[in-house]
């Protein structure tokens, strides 16, 4: 396992990011109460790279995806796609962007309209948004189906005639048939059985690479994210608490929450799991599950952190670039003094 670190991806390329999220906040109104789903989160993905976004349920990872996809408005902050702002677009502008940004969602059964044939679903965007001729649609469907390993006979069937794995292949085909530049995978392999999951992961990896796709890969499963991503961002209570090269974050986590996440994820290896459990129990935990979202002025993880010091309760930590290449928001493990100056020091300026 440790030899993997040597092959860790080198520093991020100089190319400007295809998608950049800066200080994004999203406030929901739920039953009269305001819920801060995303709290000044920043991340960026360079063209052709895959960013894995991990966090527990309610951490805001799907909300970030929804903002990028235009499903949820941003409350503040900016999202830039290929140099142009992405939020507050009109419906027509969004429709034009749909060609370039596509998504694959978690539930393969839910993401296909059960009343419509596969062919209608796959060709829908080409026909009704991009005004592609019927003949051209047929050609493009045939070629994309071949790429995901299926034949054109599926076009006349209904979703209920497929297994979850097959439907997820079709969902990938539907997203890729318009040749997007950015693909958002929101828990795209999470509901699949293990033996099928590996097939779909391979398919996604192969197509991402072959087409030079930029991929925002959201998952709660750290090992899947580690395998597929160039970089990982860890989200807690709507805030990015750590981000950096995949191997660095997964194998040498710096933020106490990332550490807790890694140690809590059980692995199918008797020796390694025994070690993980021992170090997890060793750390101890303050599991007073307070409402992390309510604590604006403190570190969001303060109520669960075993290493808490005074400043954690009074001041919110900012992302600090560490020599390891990771950026971490933690007063204890990444104090300002440890930070290396980079051109990206705007990370800390989120006031």
């Amino acid at each position: 396992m440790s030899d993997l670190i040597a092959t860790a991806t080198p520093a991020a390329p100089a190319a400007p990011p295809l998608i950049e999220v800066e200080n994004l906040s999203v406030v929901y109104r739920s039953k009269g109460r305001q819920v801060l789903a995303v709290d000044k989160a920043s991340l960026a993905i360079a063209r052709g790279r895959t960013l894995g976004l991990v966090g527990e349920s309610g951490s805001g990872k799907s909300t970030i995806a929804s903002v990028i996809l235009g499903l949820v408005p941003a409350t503040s902050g900016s999202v830039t796609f290929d140099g142009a702002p992405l939020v507050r677009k009109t419906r027509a502008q969004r429709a034009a962007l749909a060609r370039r940004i596509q998504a694959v969602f978690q539930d393969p059964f839910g993401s296909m309209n059960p009343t419509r044939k596969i062919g209608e679903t796959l060709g829908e965007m080409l026909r009704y948004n991009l005004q592609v001729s019927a003949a051209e649609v047929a050609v493009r469907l045939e070629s994309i189906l071949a790429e995901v390993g299926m034949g054109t006979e599926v076009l006349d069937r209904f979703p209920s005639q497929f297994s979850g794995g097959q439907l997820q292949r079709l969902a990938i085909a539907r997203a890729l048939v318009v040749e997007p530049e950015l693909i958002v995978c929101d828990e795209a392999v999470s509901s699949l059985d293990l033996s099928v999951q590996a097939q779909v992961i391979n398919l996604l990896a192969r197509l991402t690479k072959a087409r030079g796709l930029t991929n925002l890969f959201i998952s709660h499963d750290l090992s899947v994210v580690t395998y597929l991503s160039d970089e990982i961002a860890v989200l807690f209570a709507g805030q990015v608490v750590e981000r950096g090269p995949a191997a660095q974050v997964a194998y040498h986590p710096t933020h106490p929450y990332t550490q807790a996440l890694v140690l809590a994820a059980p692995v199918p290896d008797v020796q390694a799991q025994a070690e993980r459990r021992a170090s997890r129990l060793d750390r101890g935990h303050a599991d007073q599950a307070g409402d992390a979202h309510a604590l604006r002025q403190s570190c969001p993880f303060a109520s669960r952190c075993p290493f808490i010091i005074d400043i954690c309760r009074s001041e919110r930590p900012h992302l600090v670039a560490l020599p390891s290449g990771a950026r971490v928001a933690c007063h204890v493990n990444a104090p300002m003094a440890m930070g290396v100056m980079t051109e990206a020091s705007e990370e800390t300026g989120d006031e």
Partner: protein
Amino acid sequence: MIKRFFHKPLAVISLVWVVTLLVLSIAAPLIAPYGPDQQDIMHALEGPSAAHPLGTGVLGLDVLSRLLYGGRVTFLSTAISLVAYLSVGTPFGLLAGYRGGLTDKVILRVSDIAYAIPGTVIVLVVLAVRPGDEDAAMIACGLVSAPSLARVVRSATISVREELFIRTAVVSGLSDVHILRKHVLPTVMGTVIVHAALFATAAIGLETGLGFLGVGTRQVTWGQLVAEASKNLGNQPWLLLPSGFIIVTFILAFGLIGDGLRDATAEGYSVRQLPVGRSTVKDGSAAVAATADADFAVAEPLLVVDGLSVAFDIAGRPTTVVAGVSFSLRPGEIVGVVGESGSGKSVTIAAMLGLLKGTGRVTSGTMRYGDRDYELSDVKSLAALRGGRVALIGQDPMSALDPVFTVRYQLAEVIRTHTDLKGAAVDARIIELLQAVRLPDPELVARSYPYQLSGGMAQRVSIAAALAGEPEVILADEPTTALDVTVQAEILDVLRALGKTVVLVTHDWGVLVDLAERAVVLYAGQVVEQGSIADIVGDPKHPYTMALLRSNPYFAAPGRPLPAISGAVLPPQDWPAGCHFADRCPLAHPECATAPVPLVVTTGRAGVTRCLFPEDVSGMEGVSA
């Protein structure tokens, strides 16, 4: 869809009846023996005769002719009100449900107001404004009923709107009109049809009622015929029958057509076309499994499941989904039952408590527990074990608790059922149980309703409820699948610390390794491998176990394809007579497919594998997609 509609005899008969009535009404001037107002004073108020097949009313008006003419009014009125009902109710419902926000609020308020005024009264007022204008009355009838349709369509639309396929369509930049027309409308169509049919029956009832009250049109109607009959109940009760028969059968037909249309619409896309079956139930494999497994009995077991087979009706045919599963538990050990969906792992433990869902039933198998033997098909005797000796923890902590009772109430009833505790002792025991599952504020939790708990807290309460009957054995069915990993780790700690005999059902090999000491690996309804965790994970002797572990991303090198298993688990109706994994197995030989493969004892360790070539597994080549 039309084709499927015609496979429903009741609906077809109804349609034929309605069409017949329609044709007869339209043709009334041509075929009616008399005019609608043609009198025959000599034969007033008579029963059926050759001249008047359905008898006569006052002034000798011919009942048959008047029924034929009356149909014209009823058809037209029903059609008018249906058009008003559908063309207002459907679009507003779609709009309110899809748009939400202010649009929704306004439409809801308007429908609240419409609800508060009894529809019949409005229709009558309209008739006061426009005496005899039944068309206006029926439009009013459609309009005052439309809000209720709008509400139904609205809630159907709201649930559709949350579907991922709508999100996908929005992400694809499709217009709202397109999404409503192509995605939302077809999905809510079934609901609309049912309500339209119900409304039509009510509208016909109202239309005839207006005729009966004598406030409708001046033309002859079925309702007027009833009114006429009501005035002559004493001397010619026969008159009630022809008009009543027509009205009742006509309404009934509309109802039945509605049912037929709804079913036909739904079946259109939801019927899973099953591949034409090969053999279904394999008795041989179960028998073989049972005998072979007997060689691998643990010493002094607490509980032994022997040769469990379970069948469900799939597409109307009994289909075996668990085929001869056997395993045993030592007191105090934690055994993992691991498999993918469809492997039969959850069905197996449900069968142990007699809690199979739906059409599921045990076709063979026994359970030895303590010094007693249980037939697993004997649900009654298994029921006696529940809670007090064997307890269950479910997958979804939220749905495992009754939403309308407090935690205290739900724990107390289990405690009272299984122990002699009373009064304050019950309360003390509740707090003790909640502390045992490491809930930080047991008093507060006891007072709470399930909706006030987080998923992790609810699962702890669920475990406390399982412990409340002081059982020896706990069956945990995917107890952490719905939870976040950090919470999962804590729940696994709780389960580990219980000191009970636990059967852990899981699909997650990490969870299995973390908690269990031994594992039973299921694939497509059969045990394929059994042994200690270290043996099974470290040196699997079944190709499925091996391939599955290899395909786990945890072991993968970034940049290299995962060694995935090709294909998918066969559905139960397609299970072959031979090895269930043969079609995906890189080691498969022709003989694997010919006969049921028995479990064989793994050489050199305490375990079994269902493979003819266990020695080849270690050197197995990975398969990539």
